[in-house]
């Protein structure tokens, strides 16, 4: 006798390991009563070294498809744009003054749990597509998100995003074909091995960091403002994504021709799955950190992240169940 049906097991096996790792980070955070761990160090290490390596490692080894990039990037922009009025509506309803409250509703946590789920559910193809989505998400977070919370744009911060350069470099390497000397090729392969090794550690480190961050938040006082925002993010977000995917299909941007090459069709279904998966994610940790940096409303943002992440244990498998129905 088994607990899960084969279809459900496929989903659970992608989701549960991620939350198990987050739980390890959470336990570490709870045990670290003296706060010996400097979270800024971990976040900086991830931001400046690990994530760029993961982005490059994943992107450079697959062929770059401009149409796919347009579909995924366009979906990220549209989903974020659609959430803006909804976030401001919730903000007004719960009577919060700070704009920083909107950040965890508008933006998604595309860098922590979703990458692991994408990898476990769709393999490297899914991981690469998810990274494209993630890149667009963080670029908007560092430009529009910073503007929203601080009232000013800071292009210097935007241009300091290391993942931006890793994306460009990954795309250049994947699209360029030239005959390099053997020594240069071997040197690149050796360098690449080091990058791959760091990339290997990125996903678990991201998730442990998420768990550790959540362990620090005290949500009891902010439940009243946290629940509406988190619900908007993890329930309305994926609903919008389903609508968007069907619109893309209707417009012919994502073909569903039954006579299509099965591998190409699978690639399109993976793209759809990745868009919906990322839309189902709770708010990003960066939204909380920007609230801290610009002294907006960090407690409320933290409450939304914690509630959204905990509720995600239930909502993400449900959304993925619908994704498998859609793909089938």
């Amino acid at each position: 006798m088994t607990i899960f049906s084969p279809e459900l097991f496929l989903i659970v096996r992608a989701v549960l390991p991620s939350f198990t790792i987050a739980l390890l980070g959470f336990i570490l955070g709870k045990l670290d009563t003296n706060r010996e761990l400097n979270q800024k160090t971990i976040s900086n290490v991830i931001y400046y070294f690990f994530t760029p390596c993961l982005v490059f490692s994943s992107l450079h080894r697959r062929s770059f498809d401009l149409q796919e990039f347009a579909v995924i990037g366009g979906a990220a922009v549209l989903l974020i744009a659609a959430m803006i009025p909804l976030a401001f509506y919730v903000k007004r309803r719960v009577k919060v003054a700070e704009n920083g409250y909107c950040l965890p509703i508008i933006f998604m946590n595309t860098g922590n749990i979703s990458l692991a789920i994408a990898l476990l559910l769709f393999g490297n193809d899914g991981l690469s597509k998810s990274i494209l989505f993630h890149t667009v998400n963080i670029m908007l977070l560092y430009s529009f998100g910073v503007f929203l919370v601080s009232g000013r744009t800071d292009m210097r911060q935007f241009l300091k995003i290391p993942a931006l350069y890793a994306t460009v470099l990954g795309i250049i390497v994947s699209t360029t074909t030239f005959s390099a000397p053997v020594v240069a090729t071997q040197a690149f392969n050796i360098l690449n091995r080091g990058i791959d090794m760091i990339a290997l550690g990125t996903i678990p480190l991201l998730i442990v960091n998420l768990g550790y961050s959540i362990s620090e938040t005290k949500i009891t006082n902010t439940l009243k403002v946290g629940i509406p925002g988190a619900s908007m993010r993890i329930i309305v977000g994926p609903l919008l994504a389903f609508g968007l995917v069907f619109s893309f299909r209707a417009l012919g941007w994502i073909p569903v021709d039954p006579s299509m090459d099965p591998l190409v069709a699978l690639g399109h279904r993976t793209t759809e799955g990745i868009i919906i998966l990322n839309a189902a994610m709770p708010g990003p940790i960066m939204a909380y950190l920007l609230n801290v940096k610009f002294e907006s409303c960090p407690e409320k943002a933290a409450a939304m992240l914690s509630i959204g992440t905990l509720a995600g244990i239930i909502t993400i498998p449900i959304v993925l169940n619908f994704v498998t129905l859609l793909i089938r």
Partner: protein
Amino acid sequence: MTLQAYLASVSSLEILMWLRGIIPVVLIVVVGVVIGRWDQSRNQRTLDKLTQQIFLPCLIFSSLHRHPFDLKEIAQIGTAATLLTVGITLLSFLLMGAARKQQETNFLPTIFMSSASLLLPLAFILFGNQGLAKAIYFYLFMLLLTHTLGSFLTEGKVTWRQFLKIPSLYTALLGMVCAAVTLPIPAAFEELAWLSEKGIDLTGLGALPLLIISFGYPLGRIPLADVLKGVPGALIRIVGAPVFAFMLIYLYRQSGWLNFEKGYDILGFIDQRTTEAIIVISAAMPSSHHTLRLDASGNPTVSQRDAATVLASTLGAMVTLCVVFFFTAAFIFFD
């Protein structure tokens, strides 16, 4: 094949194979040095704690539970670790006893190698999980020796309590039990066990880059000008220890404890050669970065000479490790 014949036949492909093992590790150490230089918080414990309490225990379980449990193999590696440590301790007293009396060194960077931070990733790159599991056994014995002999040398007592608080010990035990005993798991729980294993495996992979980065982190804080002070200790560490290890392997073979007959069991033969290679490579590792501690302003808290030993052994190991790889391939795999 004789050594001469081997030297003649050594191809650029083999050299490339060693370089593919060592250069990525060196590059990640450099990343660690950059992080250590640039991190304003100077909190070395952050990376260490993250690695030691979460990632390394997961890597250890993930590797050991899928590696066949063999008591003889553990005894061979454990004996080698103990004899190496005792031998290097005696050599240190013999050659640098005066420096210890003047409190210039506590010998720890000379005696204890980086048996986790550099050894485990290198063993994994060069020999896969088979090599990693053997390197983990070596690391566990070094942990025991650090908290017994190491603590005795510095504090005059054995720190059992701290030793028993190390999470890796328990995940190692669990991994070995899972490998040795086929537990009757109900079918319904098999899926849950598989899912947990998947999460642990994924986390374990994160240990490899983190271990190397946490090794590089304090290195950038040691003044390069002091490096000469560390040369004697470093020479014992990265030259004396691997020579000792080769002698040990020779004795193992002569006593018949490690069989060199190829026979029909080719896999068994390769396994024994891997054990030998792991012992030699472990011995050739530079000093453990755990012997260094940074204070609030980012300066090492150990003596100048000990800090210099860590730096000198790390810089020197870039050359000596290549030589050790070469001789390992020549004497162990090709004889």
